[in-house]
């Protein structure tokens, strides 16, 4: 059977102790966020979200867990989490920051999650509406950036698909 050496090597790479040089620092995290924001700003839809950062004096923090996800625990604390395999992936970070800022924008405009005492149906209805609104924005940003061809080797729509939003991307493309 064919031996996929690169993949096997990366297995041990994942299990070795990281040197201090390889560990992310506050500065390297800030540089990554800044780079991702620069990309976000290049799309018209993204610029609206980008402007929130300065206008609302938001601080975005980059953390590392086992998932690529976002966390908005309060109005001023915004976290983006990258998984190990994507810890240096700026396009994924850009999409996650856009998602986070969209959450912030929704909260600011009063689109809040249901209260814990509300019926399940209300929770589902609000969650679906918020998610649809967010995905429409993310698809628009990814589409615009792909059209700009600033990164010819990269498809931001594919990044969205890789994050599990295949269906949303397909619906968006069919309606452009």
């Amino acid at each position: 059977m064919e031996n996929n050496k690169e993949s096997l090597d990366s297995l041990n790479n994942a299990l070795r102790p990281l040197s201090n040089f390889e560990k992310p620092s506050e500065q390297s995290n800030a540089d990554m966020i800044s780079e991702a924001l620069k990309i976000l700003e290049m799309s018209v839809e993204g610029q609206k979200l980008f402007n929130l950062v300065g206008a609302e004096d938001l601080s975005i923090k980059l953390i590392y867990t086992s998932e690529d996800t976002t966390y908005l625990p309060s109005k001023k604390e915004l976290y983006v989490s990258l998984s190990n395999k994507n810890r240096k992936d700026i396009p994924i970070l850009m999409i996650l920051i856009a998602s986070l800022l969209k959450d912030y924008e929704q909260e600011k405009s009063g689109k809040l999650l249901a209260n814990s005492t509300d019926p399940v149906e209300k929770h589902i209805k609000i969650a679906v509406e918020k998610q649809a609104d967010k995905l429409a924005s993310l698809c628009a940003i990814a589409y615009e950036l792909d059209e700009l061809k600033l990164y010819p080797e990269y498809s931001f729509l594919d990044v969205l698909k890789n994050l599990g939003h295949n269906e949303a991307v397909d619906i968006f493309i069919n309606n452009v």
Partner: protein
Amino acid sequence: MKWKKLKREDSHEVLDKLKSRSDAVVFSKSSTEVLVCNLSFYEEFKLYKLTNYMTLPCFVMYYLSNGTDFYAMDGTASQIYKVNDLEFMNLNTDNIIQYVDFVFENAEGDDGDIFLIHQPENPNFMKSMSEAYRKNVIEHYHPIQIKEDEINRVFLVHGTLYYGHSLISATIQITKKGIITVKNQKLLLKGVHMPNEADQYSWISGEKL
């Protein structure tokens, strides 16, 4: 893993301790559940799972802690190795598989999740595969075997790993301080797609070499 939910006052104590760190991630007391799990290979450190249920999606973070120091699980093995340096590690042939599973659950490679396959016959593991593929997996599967090499002060676990959508036979070497290296890797089968819940299987037996 056997998780135990902390009482309200105990979870608040954990959140207060975390809050005092400069790199603390915000968890509100009113919407965060704290679970704890004992780990047989550590005396003092336990695994804490913090879940904020008031965000969409729920946000989860795992920490290794002795009640005073907290080490956030960051998707690499490094945080575990850091704790191993501080702890008296109780690794033995009875818990070495639990330790390997623990490291694999918390360390992700460039090609995604890493699992040590315990039971290929498990229907959940097989359910996404065709009949021909199931046969192929069972034929290629190497059962788990454990050996303690006292001269070199390492444990050797021979078995079948899932990584990068492939099954790999390999020898996993674990030092007494818990550093893992995978040796003698041989690709057995490519294009295997593991269901999400595959890591929840429990290991029931390991044949000693």
